[in-house]
């Protein structure tokens, strides 16, 4: 790890000020991606601004319209265990309960995961499938606006994610095929029956990060059943390929995981 300085802040305003004052800062929340990256000397921020103790960024609340608002520094374990999430969005609770390992789930945060937009992370699939709204200290984004490419988001420099709001959905489920080594998703599919119809989002498989599957959504709109997905799968040309699986294999996994998610929802 390269030398860095550490600054724990207690409010979003304080965090914003600290970020603006630093040369090359990074926001630290759960640190489950950032710290290992720094240990491998692949990141060298001049200053870490730790927002983990900022009360206003933490916690889960049900909104009047039934939507669930999750503060940015809420851990995966907290999301997985939350009674409202489990009742309203069981697919989201299940997703959070299967991220990484227990250590990651008790430290890692939803805001950190979304802001990093790792192409193999789980949360982006839920956010996109459920049409979540990502709120920051400067404004808000729809999930479609927010995820702009692999490790890329619409966030401006030093913009702080403060919360994510998931609207209601009648049915939700997530199925993933984990990479055998890293246990990140090789293909993770979140399906949701929403008031505006079925939505299907895929993580882990695509070259550009999380994406929706309109053909699957149309098939599910006709008949919400695993069989209606038939052999619908993404174009292998758009899929990732690495030593763990070819693009063709990942395209197959998207189909299989989508069917399993629908069957579970």
């Amino acid at each position, binding site marked *: 790890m*390269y030398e860095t300085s550490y600054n724990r802040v207690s409010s979003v305003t304080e965090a914003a000020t600290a970020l603006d004052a630093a040369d090359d800062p990074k926001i630290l929340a759960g640190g489950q991606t950032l710290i290992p990256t720094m240990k*491998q000397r692949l990141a060298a921020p001049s200053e870490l601004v730790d927002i983990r103790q900022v009360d206003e960024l933490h916690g889960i609340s049900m909104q009047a319209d039934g939507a669930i608002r999750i503060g940015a520094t809420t851990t995966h374990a907290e999301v997985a265990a939350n009674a409202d999430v489990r009742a309203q969005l069981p697919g989201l609770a299940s997703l959070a309960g299967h991220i990484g390992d227990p250590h990651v789930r008790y430290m890692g945060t939803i805001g950190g995961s979304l802001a990093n937009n790792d192409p193999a992370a789980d949360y982006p699939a839920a956010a996109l499938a459920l049409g979540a709204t990502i709120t920051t200290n400067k404004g808000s984004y729809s999930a479609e606006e927010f995820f702009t490419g692999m490790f890329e988001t619409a966030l401006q420099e030093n913009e702080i994610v403060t919360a994510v709001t998931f609207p209601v959905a009648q049915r939700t489920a997530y199925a993933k095929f984990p990479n055998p*080594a*890293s246990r990140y998703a090789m293909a993770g599919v979140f399906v949701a029956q929403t008031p505006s119809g079925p939505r299907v989002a895929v993580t882990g498989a695509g070259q550009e990060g999380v994406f929706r599957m309109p053909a699957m959504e149309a098939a599910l709109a006709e008949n919400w059943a695993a069989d209606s997905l038939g052999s619908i799968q993404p174009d292998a040309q758009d899929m990732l390929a690495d*030593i763990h699986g*070819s693009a063709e*294999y990942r395209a*197959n*996994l998207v189909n299989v995981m989508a069917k399993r998610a629908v069957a579970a929802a």
Partner: protein
Amino acid sequence: MKAEGIGARVLRKEDNRFISGKGNYTDDVVLPRMGHAAFVRSPHAHAKVLGVNAEAALAMPGVDAVLTGHQLVADGIGNIICGWLVHSKDGSPMNMGAWRALEPEHVRFVGQAIAVVIADTPQQAKDAAAVVDVTYEELPAVVDSLAALATEAPQLHEEAPRNTSFDWELGEEQQVADAFANAAHITKLDLTNNRLVPNPMEPRAALADYNSAEEHYTLYTTSQNPHVARLVLSAFYNVAPEHKLRVIAPDVGGGFGSKIYIYPEEIVCLWASKKVGRPVKWNCDRTEAFLTDAHGRDHHSHAELAMDADNRITALRVETTANLGAYMSLFSSAVPTYLYATLLSGQYDIPAIYANVKAVYTNTTPVDAYRGAGRPEATYLVETIVDKAARELGLDPADFRSHNFIRSFPHQTPVIMNYDAGDYDATLSAAKQAANYADFATRKAEAAARGKLRGIGLSCYIEACGIAPSQAVGSLGAGVGLWESAEVRVNPVGTIEVLTGSHSHGQGHETTFAQLVAERFGLPTDNVTIVHGDTDKVQFGMGTYGSRSGAVGMSALAKALDKVEVKAKRIAAHLLEADEADITIEDGELKIVGTDKKLSFTDVSLAAYMAHNLPEGMEPGLKEGAFYDPQNFTFPAGTHVCEVEIDPATGKVEIVQFVAADDFGQIINPMIVEGQVHGGLVQGIGQALLENAAYDADGQLLSASYMDYTMPRADNVPSFKLETNSTLCPSNPLGMKGCGEAGAIGAPPAVMNAISDALGGVEVSMPATPEKVWRLAQAALPKQAAE
């Protein structure tokens, strides 16, 4: 059975410190004024080194020195040795390219050390190493051993034409050819044994301390054999004479073979400590471990098996190309030859065997012994081709194996080994019964109803352990003897210290060696301390590898205990005024048989040291040592049965049942043996399903972290069913055979045969990754549906 003697499940004495964080590992040792080393490593798999400019690094804060290969060579530090001389079939000795601890001119694998930075902190050293400016001229690289044999392949070493170190053979080629000419059936197989990275929990580390006043060095290091390290450092690397070099291997967190060798980093730390006049510590990070710990396996083989009309195996012919990596590591020549081809008879009575092995340099990390070392490669080959032959002949794979088993002992194989004892039917039967082999068809049908492909696979393995009879290995080219030593020091109060040349890095010697003492004298194991891992404390010994600590190390201890027992009985007989032959030792007391006259062990040891009343002419004290040189290898063997279910939609393989029925001879602590078997099985399953050191064509290691190198985890393996069915080893006093490597040797073919069975008999290569299995399952499904 005595409460803490042979056969007792005594809890591991060492675990108290390990699980409470109180172990003392090399990195825990802190010395005053200690500097830290960071290595400058080649990012290229093959390149000329045109220059090393350390100016910017030397100007960095805290930097003490930047040392290079030219300085190392100028100071007379010797090249890294290979400790076993193998000859090609034409009689010429193996061709060794020079391996320098810091390479001044020509790097041959990614991660090879070029220079070292010594600084006040590890961070400063790493920061400075990153700015050492090395100028390279990149050369084309070759990573696959078969490709390296091609005439147009890049050449690594001038000394080794066509990248070949040796072209070795074993067995009678003509006899085998004759058998094939008369065969009723021939089974052919092409097989790759995938390259693995050992991954002990504790990465390597070294702390070297040169004392200029005494001209003495101390090296703390992660070694499985500190005395061998001292010998090699002294005799070949010219660091210091042996009496001026102390090597301490404190607590060591796993080795699996990878900590046998003396690597460049340890040599450089010793040399640098004198150069910079301060202790020098190096701690390997995990990526460095992936790049520089000796890898394992990496064979390509073609094999042919001949059967007669009665389905008896008449001959086996094997052509193997073994990847050495860029340099020959310490045991690298022995692993694909004398530790491999000598086991090609398996458990079978095969009259004729011929093996030809080419050992080939490539631009990859050096390959050496890794848990099993040669024997997993032999077992995978034999058990795969035997399975394939049974399938081709339409025979039950268990019946075909049993039909060809060796049943009389001793049995001389055509490939050097003389099997001394075994009962292969017993372990096969035990395994089949535990696995409910007979009822597999029901389970397969039930799985099919759930959409799963279920398969069952066998592996009847044999290994040669208890390494090794010194004269025998010497005649085959070994540079050392492979005996072991022990010293038993009885203290005046009757407590005991055992000094052993074996080294424990996870095996539980502090418990099992103490159990041997408990068995002999009826003392609690708490009265016994096992001392190991320090050349200043312990007499010369050969260390731990090749499942040798029980069969060889404990045999040495048994011999030393014999001597202590004789002397103690003499003293007791003298004090009790009885005949020595009438003295027995039990429950910590020396008794006259058939009477109530007795002395405690403490009384006798105190008498030995008081020396007020000893038998005429007896020396005071109670301390005895012994060296034990085995007469033969030991031959642990057994049958593993693996049952898998494949999800055809994803290719994911789940191991739903795994049975290991092993013959380890005498077992000292069943709990520890089970732990050894569990660990070995998990590593074997890891090789079969998960692990693979993958290189790209340029020689970059693609799986150089846990993000890409798939370590087996708890949810990859089932709860194992273990059976032991023991025949005693006749060649050592305890009847022990060894258990440390069996799991890693037996498991891979059992898993692979099960997968093959599930997929209708197709050949599958290791590791059986989900995609590979998915593609085969897609092809197999319509076929199975049609059947």
